[in-house]
């Protein structure tokens, strides 16, 4: 999953987990969880989102609940990565634990240059975002610990018997 390519879906600050995934779509049924993504905010997003698309947001993305259905809904819609100025801590852990890359902008002001629907490529190896216009935007290196979880394919593969697990 070193390179992610898709369109940008642009959001503001403090996007909370109830906006990402409304409580009414809480379920153990993956199809119901998948359909709930941003349902209250704009039901069209879920219908139009495509594999590899990238969520881009301001401060404190994912604040609120610990319910992992919000991360599951993003993953079930095959979103490639989430980029933000910063993340709420529980969301960041949940996403990382499930192998959904969350990266932060090195320069906060770069967010302002990005447009809704713009095609971009995210390179996880060197932590950069390249726009369709060829503009290179640096992202913060996620650190060795996060990379270790990404490389393992998620936190559960780090369980003592994790290497035996089918993943």
């Amino acid at each position, binding site marked *: 999953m070193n390179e992610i390519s898709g369109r940008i879906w642009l959001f503001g600050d*403090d996007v*909370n987990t*109830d*906006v990402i995934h*409304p*409580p*009414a779509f*809480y*379920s*153990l*049924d993956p199809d119901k969880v998948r359909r709930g993504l941003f349902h*209250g*905010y704009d039901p069209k997003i879920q219908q139009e989102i495509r594999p590899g698309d990238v969520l881009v947001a301001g*401060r*404190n993305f994912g*604040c*609120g*609940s*610990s*319910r*992992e*259905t919000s*991360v*599951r809904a993003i993953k079930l819609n095959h979103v490639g990565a989430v980029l933000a100025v*910063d993340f*709420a*801590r*529980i969301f960041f*852990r*949940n996403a990382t*634990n*499930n192998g959904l890359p969350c990266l932060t902008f090195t320069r906060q002001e770069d967010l302002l240059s990005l447009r809704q629907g713009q095609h971009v490529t995210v390179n996880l190896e060197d932590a950069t975002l390249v726009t369709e216009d060829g503009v290179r935007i640096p992202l913060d290196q996620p*650190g060795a*610990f996060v990379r270790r979880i990404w490389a393992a394919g*998620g*936190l*559960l593969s*780090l*369980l*003592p*018997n994790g290497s035996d*697990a089918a993943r």
Partner: protein
Amino acid sequence: MAGRTISDKVIDAHSADDDGTAAYRLVRVDAVLGHDATTALLIDDFERRGLTIWDRDRVLLTNDHFSPPSTIEYADISNKFLRFARDNQVTNLMLDRGICHQLLVEHRLCQPGGLVVGADSHTVMGGGIGTCATGMGATDILFTLVTGTTWLRRPETIAVRFHGELPPTSSGRDIVLELLRLLGESGAQYRCLEFHDESRPKLSQDDRFAVANMAVELGAKFGVFVPDEVTADYCVRRDGELLATPVLPDADAVYERVLDIDLSALDARIARPYSPGNVVPVSEVESVSISTAFLGSCSSGRLEDIRDAAEEVAGRAVHPAVRFIVIPASVEVFKQALRAGYVETLTDAGATFNHSSCGACGGIDKGVLGADDVCVSTSNRNFRGRMGHWDSRTYLASARTVARAALLGRIGPDLYRNEGAR
């Protein structure tokens, strides 16, 4: 060595690695908390991998989101959760006993100086008695259930010192709403909030739980009160004796920031839709008719909240256009409220008591809001769509404010006017 804060000391005391300089520490936990809605998400992975719980005596599980279940789907999820808990012989499985966070602080697993993780963001409430407790998602909790450990980044600490005397019509809710007004939704992101109660008289334990509970609304990892005689009284009443040695911060502890709050000047606060950080004094809020008043949730469904509401509605009647729902945070709280006569007072005034559970706070159980509903609530989040329909609107306030609004049929700047005449 630099002075250490409470969270520094608790993390050091629980470290399971030998690298005090690492950005992430592997730590042992004292207890794990889980409820039906989030624990159900980890069961398939747990069973597929043939895993076992590291110490079933240190796990507290309860069904609080679906209690009792309102739909067939939720009943099936609930049954799956209960079967998981029973199959794994979880010692502290509590069936329909109340909200997990309240049950945790009613249990001796939650001790000052302890480290607790839970599969719900409001696990931070354990900080009300000096426990470093924090919420995580299902995958993290699965890892901890199996290993008894987790990874933590050492948080910076913001010290918050309370001074003065809290006015009799204000409560812990108003304090934490004021903190949200000052700091905003990410003002304590990744931080530990360390609360120093220098007010006189000291804040009650229920007020402290209300403050600690919403530390997560400020983005905090921990929201921990410095243990004192109020903490000791609570623990002795609960456990029969003081089981833990309280962990106190060093006098020269290093804080990222120190915030001084004079409680004497703190009148009622209210958070407007759609953010818990959108806080104004009640005296400045717009006049709006309400359809629902909700007194409940882990944030403020405790005895003193129910007492405050009973005091307000005694001998009066809830406005005919308002549905006033009261949910005690636990069955134990409900029994205390029954004995004190608060349940009868509130019921006589027209309030409806529901079973101890999360209720409509999370938008998935009885009492959810329709498109036209306007709710004033003691719960902890008024995010858009949180309590029901995307167009519904929720204001967050104290139990006293909720009760006053229920009587009047609206909120408004005059809720606390003519205080002396009441």
